[in-house]
């Protein structure tokens, strides 16, 4: 007789160099339930999922995971094992082939055969049978690229179910869905439950947890804080569990007070330049003072990165609102123009946007600043070397010399290279998009110290961070964003983790000027 526990996670610890991503995590998931997992960004949710998927194979973590009463022992290099065992994950980033039909996607890699060819009739009739069984309202012959995001997700779910998934893991499934689509997803999950499929539902949107889950596990800093039936919880309790209580002295002290206002953003609205009907910044007002560290908090999809890349002239097309720098209205025509005006951006995801990994430290640092030591016809290598060297020392970049390729550096040192590049452009305003993401504690502290020093020199810093403690510890003021809107700006005395979390999850607005003004119009 099968046990009523389908997944039993016992004392799982996963270490990365310098970070403990999971620390003795233990909890159980009952057969047939919908189990919510929530936690801040970086709490360890993704690491746990990647272990269940076999991306981090057996032996790279400590502890034991029992699935259907058998210990999971995935070998290195095979992602299929998890699928074959009956564990399916629908990731936030969908993994469908856009130019194929729903049926082709569902059976990708295991198409039913007919001699040497594919039995298309069986493929489509099997797909349609699965879609009908679980009330998924899609045509098996439809091209995936013509579907909305909600239906694409259903296709992913159908794919997982066609592989006889015993347990279906949904990672932030609603982040890109509309309200109606979310409702539809909830219905589907209930249907799945009635068919005996177990679901793990990962989210940081609290209302959804109460709407759909049977029990909830809260992770924070890689630890399980609680795991109990949803009926015994309420929102305040959950938020308290998610953000914890104590703030450790992780942040260096700063002496200076912010000076006069140098930059103002008024009623800014912007659209995605590739999809002009998609508004990404939906009303943001703030000002920025000399020597201030201005935090922007918000969850994934809150529009914070879209906002800062728009300010840098590299992303959103501004449809409404004004930017004012040193008392003058400005238009920013792109990254080069922004730099000339004294605005620099340390972008998110240094590997994708910050660095040319196959080039040396020196070439990376100087890339944005070649003007400083070259004419159109020649680069003065010695001047370049000297300038890069002085920034490298100032930021304490640890490398044998400046000709070391960036791909060999640690995350913290890579980040310092990106910061060095932007500091060399001598900015008045430095925007840092999640500057300490994925780097170890020591390197984080060095970056905090550097930020303090820069602000003492009068540079205004806009810092985006996914880490609540960090943003509270470092900022003078914090703007909280949700779904492209500013939910309000908190002064230092009002900093409160729970308040920020509530605003970020969209549950409450702090005296929202933007909304009010729009109402009057």
């Amino acid at each position, binding site marked *: 007789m099968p046990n009523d526990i389908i997944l039993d996670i016992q004392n799982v610890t996963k270490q990365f160099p310098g970070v403990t991503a999971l620390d003795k995590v233990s909890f159980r998931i009952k057969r047939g339930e919908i189990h919510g997992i929530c936690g801040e960004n970086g709490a360890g949710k993704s690491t746990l999922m990647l272990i269940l998927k076999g991306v981090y194979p057996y032996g790279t973590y400590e502890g034991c995971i029992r699935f259907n009463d058998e210990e999971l022992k995935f070998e290195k290099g095979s992602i299929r094992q998890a699928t074959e065992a009956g564990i399916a994950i629908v990731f936030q980033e969908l993994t469908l082939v856009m130019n194929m039909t729903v049926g082709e996607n569902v059976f990708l890699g295991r198409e039913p055969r007919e001699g040497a060819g594919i039995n298309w009739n069986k493929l489509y009739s099997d797909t349609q049978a699965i879609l009908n069984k679980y009330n998924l309202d899609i045509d098996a012959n439809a091209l995936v690229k013509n579907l909305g995001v909600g239906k694409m997700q259903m296709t992913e779910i159908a794919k997982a179910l066609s592989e006889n998934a015993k347990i279906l893991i949904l990672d932030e499934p609603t982040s890109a869905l509309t309200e109606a689509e979310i409702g539809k997803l909830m219905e589907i999950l209930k249907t799945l439950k009635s068919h005996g499929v177990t679901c793990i539902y990962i989210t940081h949107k609290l209302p959804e947890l109460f709407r759909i889950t049977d029990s909830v596990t809260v992770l924070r800093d890689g630890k399980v804080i609680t795991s109990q039936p949803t009926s015994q919880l309420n929102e305040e309790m959950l938020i308290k569990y998610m953000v914890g209580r104590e703030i450790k002295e992780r942040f260096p002290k700063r002496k200076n007070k912010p000076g006069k206002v140098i930059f103002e953003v008024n009623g800014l609205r912007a659209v995605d330049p590739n999809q002009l009907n998609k508004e990404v910044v939906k009303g943001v007002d703030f000002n920025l003072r000399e020597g201030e560290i201005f935090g922007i908090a918000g969850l994934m999809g809150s529009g914070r990165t879209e906002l800062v890349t728009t300010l840098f002239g590299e992303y959103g097309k501004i449809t409404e609102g004004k930017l004012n720098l040193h008392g003058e209205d400005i238009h920013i025509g792109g990254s080069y123009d922004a730099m000339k005006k004294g605005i620099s951006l340390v972008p998110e995801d240094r590997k994708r946007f910050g660095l040319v990994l196959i080039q040396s430290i020196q070439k990376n640092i100087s890339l944005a600043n070649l003007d400083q030591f*070259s004419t159109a016809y020649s680069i003065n290598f010695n001047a370049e070397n000297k300038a890069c060297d002085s920034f490298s020392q100032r930021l304490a970049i640890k490398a044998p010399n400046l000709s070391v390729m960036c791909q060999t550096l640690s995350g913290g040192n890579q980040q310092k290279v990106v910061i060095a590049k932007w500091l060399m452009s001598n900015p008045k305003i430095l925007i840092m998009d999640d500057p300490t993401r994925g780097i170890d504690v020591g390197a984080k502290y060095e970056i905090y110290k550097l930020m303090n020093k820069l602000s003492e020199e009068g540079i205004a810093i806009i810092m985006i961070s996914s880490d609540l403690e960090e943003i509270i510890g470092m900022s003078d003021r914090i703007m909280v964003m949700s779904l492209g809107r500013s939910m309000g700006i908190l002064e230092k005395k009002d900093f409160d983790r729970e308040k920020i979390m509530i605003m970020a999850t969209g549950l409450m607005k702090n005296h929202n000027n933007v909304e009010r003004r729009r109402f009057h119009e």
Partner: protein
Amino acid sequence: MSDALSFLKKQIKENIQTYAILFAMAFVWLLFSFLTEGMYIRSQNFSNLFRQMTVTSFLAVGMVLVIVTGNIDLSVGKVAGFVSVVAAKFQDDIWFNVMPNNELLTTILSVLIGIGVGTIFEAIQGYLIAYLHVPSFIVTLGGSWILNGAILVVTEGKTIAANQPIFSYIAQGYLPPIAGWIMAGALILVLFLTMFQSRRNKMKYGFTPAPIVLDIARTIFLSIIITVYVYIVNQYNGVQFPVLLLAVTAVVMAYISNNTPIGRYAYAIGGNREAARLSGVNINKSIFKVFVFMGVLCGISGVVLASYVGYGTIAAGSGYELDAIASCILGGTSTLGGIGTIFGAIIGAMLMASLTSGLQMLNVTAAWQYILKGIVLVLAVYADVYLKKSR
């Protein structure tokens, strides 16, 4: 001295690919010398070998930067071919009617027109690729068809002679031996002066230059290569004019790729387009410029081609684009962009030319030459992939 040794070791480790291809080159020369009982490295063959590689080398030199930015140019063979028939047409036909007795001037004008035509055509393609974002593969494929037609229009299907003495000198001329020696001497002097100048500059900025023994050793090594080269070719007819032209062009392009912002941006774009864009690099302008350079080089290549064959023909330049691309790849240019050197491409072109020349001497048929060259290209890239993985 141990200082110098460790420095040397590091240099070799960092440039393992360059050394590997130089080694392959030496191997090919030794092998053919052995198989042809020494005929292969006789000065006449040696001299011709270098002359033969020039036409595609000009293209390869330009192609490096195109591939480095993450693009490709399939039209260069036909651009060079079109330039060659245009130059021939002017030489043979138009000037003859306009100013029959002014050979030097007409040659200069033909050369300038040829280079201009190549540059304009590539600039148009570059505009489509860089600013209108049409994939380079498509633009240049279409471009080569267009030029194929244009060549037929200009030649009217006939062969045009381009064998006037001064024009012929471009690809067939030799410097008198004494001029060769003077040039070699001047070059060696310049090498030493640059070396000391660069050391002085480094010290001015407070850096410790590389051990002086090494700098001197390297300069002496280069000087020996120059001397040996001039000695060998002087045994035959002297320094080949087209090779001299190629050397100058390659030095200029190497300078552009290493020492100017344009070059730096090209590598950054190929290495990470997004990071380059966010760093204020004007991506469109940079890619456009690279295609303009490619155009100038196609122009030079086409002029040399016309002068080399002495004719403008309908088949001119066919397939040269593939030779140029293969030279770049053999020379270590990454098809993914961001990596590649001019020097490597020249060596790659030399390797291809050495193979062809050797196989011809051994009376291997054209069919087998193609088959062997194909195998060598694929094996060479496989070896490179393998070396990278095992490191």
